[in-house]
């Protein structure tokens, strides 16, 4: 069965979604990530969607679920690289992905994760760089 690879980088996990996922693949990713966070004790998850050309309500829900589940497991999730066309479409669709933090790219996403880990609090903002 094909699955999306999850890379471990220190205490962070990096997932790069490059294909138009069919439902099975997306659900498998959700399960795999939850397991990996648990077994690796990772504190942060970076999901790179810069190659994703379509994000519909299903994928939106998956991303939301991943963010929720990782928080329960004491990890933060940041979704990075959303394409402008996708952002505009999501907004029109009525999806704002509450609870999902975002950053422009992997680099900034890492910075965001590191900052949130050192400040240790739970933050509600979406991609809001807190001092």
């Amino acid at each position, binding site marked *: 069965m094909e699955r999306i690879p999850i890379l471990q980088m220190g205490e962070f996990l990096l997932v790069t979604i490059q294909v138009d996922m069919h439902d099975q693949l997306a659900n498998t990713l959700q399960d795999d990530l939850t397991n990996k966070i648990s077994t690796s004790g990772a504190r942060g998850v970076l999901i790179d969607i810069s190659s994703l050309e379509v994000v519909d309500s299903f994928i939106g829900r998956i991303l939301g679920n991943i963010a929720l589940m990782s928080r329960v497991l004491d990890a933060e999730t940041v979704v990075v690289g*959303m394409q*402008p066309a996708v952002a505009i479409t999501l907004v029109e669709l009525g999806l704002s992905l509450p609870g999902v933090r975002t950053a422009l790219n992997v680099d900034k996403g890492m910075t965001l994760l590191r900052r949130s880990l050192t400040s240790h609090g739970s933050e509600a*903002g979406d*991609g809001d760089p807190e001092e």
Partner: protein
Amino acid sequence: MATSRLPVILKQYESDLLTEWVKEMSASGGHRANLMRESELREQAAEFLRLLQAAAQTGQLESIQGSEWEPVREFLARISRSRGIQGFTPSETANFVFSLKGPLFARLRREVPSAEALVGELWTVSSLFDRMGLLTMETFQKAREEVINRQQREMMELSTPVVTLWDGVLALPLIGTLDSGRTQTVMEALLQKIVDTGSEVAIIDITGVPTVDTLTAQHLIKTITATRLMGADCIISGIRPQIAQTIVHLGVDLGDVATKSTLAGAFQLALQKAGLTVTKVRSAPGSGR
């Protein structure tokens, strides 16, 4: 059905028809001497006659949609476009076609012996020319629409400049009303600039937005949400007291987006968020500044 004498006439009297036709155009005012030289007009007329002749030879005179008439259609579309650009009215361009009827009918009257046959001929030729004339008008209209659409797009782009105030800080001064079409353009421009510059703060200044009603507020919120999804933050500036009142009155919920009354205030906040600060340069002793 009897075959029309049109192809034969066009072939036999080509040069005469050309001369008479050009004369007719200059006389009836269908030719604007200030817009087109007579030699150019003659060239256009000659080419049209040639193409018309070739198409008529096929014997298909009922419709101009087929492949036999494609060269004629292309020619008419071309001159309709160019004449539109040159400043001819659509009627003047259509008259280019219609004014050939005169010389042709004169010839037909001479060549066709019976009155009944003549009536049939005149009808065929007239319908044919009507169709061609209408084609020029349609092309003219389409070309005009393209120009209008292009100008509209350019206007929209001009009125949504996204400015880089500092590293990672963008400013988007909105001027005028924010309707749904404009909102699309604004979002596209802003988001693309965010990607291009890697900016994390976008200041949307609404000093130039006259009124904020529920719809405008919704559009603004859409833009803010889209920016957030990309991983950047918005600051709304230029909120006049009346706008602030309207927003509260309408029960618009801007969420937790930061708002400032002035662009300067917003810029200060943006720098703060970016972890930057402005310090005064200590003047060196004896520099006289």
